[in-house]
């Protein structure tokens, strides 16, 4: 095979080869049939899991991007570092502690779980939005103002588009964290694939554990893939480092 062809195919061949290897191992060791036994649970809990991520992550995006944008404004420059430290503090609190706290105040079920996931998913998005907007070169803002754009127009037409790649990058990281943390929602009664994982641990049933863990991993990879594609297509060629 020529060098050029190998270089183009190998990034795609490698993951496929790994997945094939895992699949073959699963089938050979008999685990595959055990996993399929949990099919219905996987589908039901998988949807629950996705709903938790969608609510928690979606609300996080809707609140964190405006929050990060506000913090980046020149008027708030003196307060922005301080407020970011508050957000940082939030991220040092262990996830389980956050879920326990939300359970204390909000009871058990979906609401505290979504609240906890929201709190956890916030920080990467706020940080990236803030630094992405701050990193927009000031001479672009000066040129925009000098040409007669209002402050709103400068934000929407110049600052936000130029920060978009970094902001979506933050969303990508945050959603990965969200998907990975969502299994813990089972512990406060919100269901999700965590049910299979934790029950599997308690019963020492490897098939059950994997029935929960593998779909979680697949959802994480798919989420990252989809957001990555959004990042690729939504950011114009002129400022998109991964698009030539």
């Amino acid at each position, binding site marked *: 095979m020529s060098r050029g062809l190998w270089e183009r195919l190998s990034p795609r061949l490698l993951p496929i080869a790994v997945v094939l290897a895992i699949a073959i191992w699963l089938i050979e060791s008999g685990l595959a049939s055990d996993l399929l036994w949990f099919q219905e649970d996987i589908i039901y809990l998988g949807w629950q899991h996705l709903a938790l991520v969608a609510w928690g992550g979606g609300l996080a995006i809707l609140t964190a991007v405006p929050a990060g944008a506000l913090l980046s404004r020149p008027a708030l420059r003196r307060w922005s570092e301080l407020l970011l430290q508050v957000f940082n503090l939030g991220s040092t609190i262990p996830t389980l502690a956050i879920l326990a706290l939300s359970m204390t105040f909000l009871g058990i079920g979906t609401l505290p779980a979504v609240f906890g996931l929201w709190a956890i998913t916030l920080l990467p998005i706020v940080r990236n939005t803030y630094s992405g907007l701050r990193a927009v*070169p000031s*001479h*672009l803002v*000066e*040129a*925009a*103002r*000098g*040409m*007669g*754009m*209002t402050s709103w*127009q400068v934000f929407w*037409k*110049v600052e936000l*588009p*130029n920060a*978009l790649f970094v902001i979506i990058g933050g969303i990508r990281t945050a959603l990965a964290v969200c998907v990975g943390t969502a299994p813990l929602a089972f512990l406060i009664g919100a269901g999700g694939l965590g049910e299979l994982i934790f029950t599997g641990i308690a019963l020492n049933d490897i098939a059950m554990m994997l029935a929960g863990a593998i779909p979680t991993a697949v959802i994480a990879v798919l989420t990252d893939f989809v957001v990555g594609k959004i990042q690729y297509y939504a*950011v*114009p*060629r*002129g*400022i998109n480092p991964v698009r030539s």
Partner: protein
Amino acid sequence: MIELDRLTKIFEGPQGEVPAVCEVSLRVPAGEICVFLGPSGCGKTTTLKMINRLIEPTSGSVFLNGEDTGKVNPITLRRSIGYVIQQIGLFPNKTVGENICVVPDLLGWDRRRARARAAELLEMVGLAPDSFMDRFPNELSGGQQQRVGVVRALAADPPVMLMDEPFGAIDPINRAGIQDEFLRMQERLKKTIILVSHDLDEAIKMADRIAIFRSGKLQQYATPSDLLAEPANEFVQDFLGSDRALKRLSVISVASAMLRDVVTVSPEDPVANLEARSKHPGREVAVCLDDAGRPIGMVKDLQLVPSEGPVKAHMQAAEPVVQAGDDLRTAVSSMLAQGTSLAICADEAGRFVGLLTWREVVAAVSGREASI
């Protein structure tokens, strides 16, 4: 037409007030380029930014075509003024076409009209619309980006343009070419332009009038030629440098300095014609012209020419030849390069129009008769 009336800006600093611009008053006639010149921190950029109210004046007014800019909405004001900054500031998230159409879009122009205008402007600066309209700024060279930046400021056809060191980011090799291109464009468009610069040579080349600033105060406001001939004070004198007489060479045209009253003959004429027509003592040169009036030779040192035979037997090559439209700096450079003490001046069609010797050069620069 731009008029500044006692424009002042005082900044509030931690140690008290910082006066940046003090009572600057001047008037730029319509269609002219005025260069704000001065060392770093002299207030020239602050003054510029007070014209489009990116910085609000502490006191004083700015009048654009008679209208007080302080009474107009600043956003509307800025959309009617072309603004170019040193870093150019092309938006990397927009294509070249979208960049140029920014102000037309803000003004609500029809899409097709805006795009047609963008194509027309790209043609004007030599960038083929088909290949450049949909490119992104990061796909352009520095010189191309600068051209698009200037053209973007012209998109809505504003009568006034403000430029803050627009050629500063271009390498010196390309800068002269782009400055020339800009001057040619200005010939056609006749915009009223204020250009901030810290480069004296650029100011002399580009300006119809130069305003020299120092510590926020206007020191002198004059044409380049007058400025170089008569600096108003010691600061201006020092700023212009000890070679300002040489710099004056580039603002005086050959046509205004040359000697027009010169003996001309045709090569077949007898030498006797030369004696009869010799007019100027000390400049004994006769120029031989062909039927079309073009110089084909010259005869120097008329007293030493024998008194018989046709002129062409005693003819030398007519070199160097300079254009009447060139400046003295180019002409003197040719004379020095060829090691001669005179140059023959021709018009664009190549016809003889005059003679340039060191005496004419000194007289033109110093304004006095030279005792050579």
